[in-house]
């Protein structure tokens, strides 16, 4: 297997255009999955050589731009982000461990793959994501960590990341650089729900790299609430990214995204709609939470996530409404 460093993402001889090549950023997902023999790239392309241009953290008055090679820890610790985008800072701060956050990049973070135990264990033949058409071992197996939203009869694997919920809530765009130059698309279109092709996880084409994320506006009234089995270094059982624009007690704009419960970064638009133009009270929080999980489907071990997720959403809203900004 070849390992090479990339000097420019746009170059015509970009080795990444081969479907079997994988970019390497912090390596905290990729190397793990290679050791498990789940990912078997024919070549690895080290993109850290692009870090100088691709790791900037650029807050401006009308929005925020984050380079894809920025480290999770640096973004989480950035004062402007903590002030104007607490949902982003907290989604990163509450993720993984200090050591991982120091290694891991934003681009790698959004591209991290599911933690489904059956996906990560190649001794199981039946995983539609790993072996298309082979079935799904998790469906009737141990599925406590699995998704209740956005599932299909092919795959119920949870999208595990935290940061993506903040991005999708804030209407972020993702900037993609490839041979043909740079394009931009809504972050909400980056990840693909499993449907009948759980092996296709994102809209990236071979050779394309995420170069940056941009977030319009500022969201000082925003929170990331994460429920998990232990106090640190653990994925969400359920999380909510909530951002509100409240003026004189009336909610003018509201964003709600859910983590730990869905197959992809999940925006709860129906729930948001209920909030707009309203004054906040507990009853409203409850209706919003119900709406967010209206389509949820639980399985043997993960049904609790529906009730849990609702309480998390309601509590995150409560926190966002009452936070001092």
């Amino acid at each position, binding site marked *: 297997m070849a390992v090479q460093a990339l000097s420019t993402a746009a170059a015509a001889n970009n080795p990444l255009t081969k479907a079997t090549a994988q970019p390497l950023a912090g390596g905290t997902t990729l190397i793990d999955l290679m050791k498990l*023999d789940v990912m078997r790239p024919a070549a690895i392309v080290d993109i850290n050589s692009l870090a100088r241009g691709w790791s900037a953290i650029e807050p401006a008055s009308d929005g925020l731009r984050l380079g894809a090679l920025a480290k999770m820890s640096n973004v989480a610790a950035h004062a402007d982000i903590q002030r104007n985008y607490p949902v982003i800072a907290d989604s990163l701060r509450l993720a993984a*461990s200090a050591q991982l956050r120091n290694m891991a990049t934003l681009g790698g973070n959004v591209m991290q793959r599911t*933690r489904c*135990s*059956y996906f990560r*264990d*190649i*001794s*199981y033949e039946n995983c539609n994501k790993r072996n298309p058409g082979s079935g799904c071992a998790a469906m*009737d*197996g*141990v599925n*406590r960590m699995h998704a209740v939203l956005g599932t299909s009869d092919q795959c119920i694997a949870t999208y595990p990341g935290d940061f993506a919920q903040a991005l999708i809530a804030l209407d972020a765009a993702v900037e993609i650089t490839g041979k043909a130059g740079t394009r931009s698309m809504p972050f909400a279109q980056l990840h693909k729900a499993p449907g009948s092709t759980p092996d296709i996880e994102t809209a990236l084409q071979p050779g394309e790299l995420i170069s940056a994320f941009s977030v319009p506006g500022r969201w000082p009234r925003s929170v990331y*609430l994460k*429920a*998990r*089995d*232990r*106090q*640190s*270094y*653990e994925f969400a*059982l*359920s999380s909510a990214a909530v951002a509100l624009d409240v003026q004189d007690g009336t909610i003018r704009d509201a964003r709600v995204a859910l983590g730990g419960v869905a197959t992809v970064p999940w925006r709860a638009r129906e729930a948001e709609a209920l909030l707009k133009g309203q004054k906040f009270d507990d009853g409203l929080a409850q209706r919003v939470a119900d709406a967010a999980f209206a389509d949820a489907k639980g399985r043997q071990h993960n049904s*609790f996530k529906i*009730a*849990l997720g609702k*309480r*998390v959403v*309601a*509590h995150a809203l409560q926190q966002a409404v009452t936070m001092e900004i």
Partner: protein
Amino acid sequence: MTAAAPEPKANMGQPVPRYDAAAKVTGRATYASDMPLDNPAYAFLVTSAIAKGRIDSFDLDDARSVRGVIDIVTHENAPKLKESKLFSNGGYAGTTIQPLKSVDIAHDGQIIAVVIAESYEAAREAANRVKVSYTAVAPSASFDSPGTTAAAAKGQNAQFKEDAEVGDFARAFDAAEVKLTASYDTPAQHHNPMELFTTSCAWMGDNLVIYEGSQYVYGLKNGVAEQLGIDADKVRVVNPYVGGGFGSRGSMTPRTAIIAGIAKRLNRPIKLVPTRDQGFTIATYRAETRHEIRLGAGRDGRLVALRHDGAEVSSRPDAYCVGGTKTTTRLYACPNVASLVSIVRADRNTPGFMRSPPEVPYLFALESAMDELAVKLNMDPVELRRINDTNVEPIGGKPYTSRSLMACFDEAAKAFGWSQRSPQPKSVSDGDWLIGYGCAATCYPTQMAPSAARVRLQRDGRTRVEIAGHEIGTGAYTVIAQTAAERLGVPLEKVAVFVGDSDLPPAPVAGGSNSTASTCSAVMMVCDQIRQRLFKAVMPSDSLADKAKETVGISQAPSTQAAKSDRPLDIEKAFDALGVGIVEEYGEWKPEGAPLDSFMAMHSGHARLVGGHQMKDKIAYAFGAEFVEVRVNRFTHEIRAPRLVGAFAAGRIMNPRTARSQLMGGLIWGMSSALLEATEIDQRNARYVNDNLADYLVPVNADVPGVEVILLSEQDDHINPAGVKGLGELANVGTNAAICNAIYHATGQRIRKLPVRLENIEA
């Protein structure tokens, strides 16, 4: 949390820093896999993807094509090995399931092939390319699976001798004023020591050296020799440091003899490093258990009837049994007691010891039930224990050699602030968090086994202690060095300790918390032999010397390190009188009540542990009390345990620093076991699902902000010469129940199944 070492109280040694502290924190400590080998080949295991059935065929072409592959060993070409009996049936093995013998598969993750290559990476790559065709049969995964068989433990496990019983339980329970019947469940758990289940085997001619983390180098040496069919004297096991054991390295696993056999055939050292997930199936684990407790009491809280029925899972061929009713039926005064332990056989790897094997699951049940009874009686749970406290165990009517249970409760309660607790559940909160306080008793039998030691003293005070004990992180080097320094009156810095090598005089398995008691008693005895020789050299008569050796201190540096005495014997003078340069003594110590064959057994790798409830006319246990604060989030139902306080009494504390560290680790593990740890079993195929440290959760620092250990002073002259009860397995026993009891106090919900997770808390 304070970091300073605790001050010694009466009957405690000095809190000297760990003998191996610098080596460990600088990475210089050499673990088994760090040992240099001459031109080794690397092994990687292939393990089965089914739990029951047979291998139809292997396709090895792809694997063989990987550059650097030397050999692939399957049942078709494996070295022939002799069987080894289960340790509890007089053998050495933790399982009698011998892989690579036939096409049969008896459990998930059974070793089915070994790839040998020039590098670890090549071996792993090739192992991933081995293709196996199986015929799978539906396995029985656990208690409720079809196809399991259940039977009483008594009669199938030689070490399970009796279902403890006294009085007439049925009648007393019927007539009791207050009754409680409740069922409790504990999950399968895996030890997950940091050091993986590696082994390295190197032959020199007919002699084999095994570098492997082991809690019993003599057991492993003799067991591997038996399997290879060679003389045990030709096998040496070396492991100066062990990266955690917790019971997983107490008995022999099948991997070692296989690797040794292949190394012999290839005429090359082989190093095996299995993966974390392979560790879940190639070694032992704590199997899941179920309990039914029935308690009958008077309105005054006095127990009149107690029954404890336990059920445990084991493998098809092996009746491993934990059987903790021996403890739970003896902990409190109660005239009518009954118990029954049964074993349920499933298609699983054979379980084994895991830190405090019987007490962890069984005391969880009893101490939860005691709390439930206290609620029924409207009584403080500490007072319920006080009313039922006893100095005589009820089954055999034998006195406890010492018992500081209530003193521990009182000390820990004071430190914790228990008196401020309002007994009403759900009565305290702090913002989003419901707060609960809970407590439980903890205990662990005092056990000892025969041990030998060799001690060599030089004229300048330099001392060398050799004993095949084990440094599994407990502080063995440190307390052995302290014992010799104290006994011989030499400065601690002059004592060099050698453990972890089966060429040294035999010590027992580092299990059952017997190590400090056994090894230090042996070292004391051998130091006394040296003292006697020195005294004889300078005393006019033997009888005077005999008397003096009991009472008079000796000292190489009389002004500083003299043991209690008015006129210590000067070592240099004694050496001059003897006319020798070195005094060396070897000795074999055995505890009171040890069977006659125990020295022979000691040399052949069978540790005969005695103590606990098995002593002739007494019973010996260490005790403690644990108090916890839990917080349950109103919205997320997340459960945290920010404060753990334990008070413990365990006879002589050799070193308060290392003792506290053991107990602190125990409390943390107890919390982990209550809230985090469970091996998830896929019921369809009897396979472990979360077999890695990302999914098998253990606490991180943020989970344990406050852990307080209180050491009580206790002296017990009826157990062993060292006066030591052993405490490695004391602290993680009571925590499970203390946490569930605190969750009840916080939420009003009684949870009887571990681990407790947020989905178990109702709105």
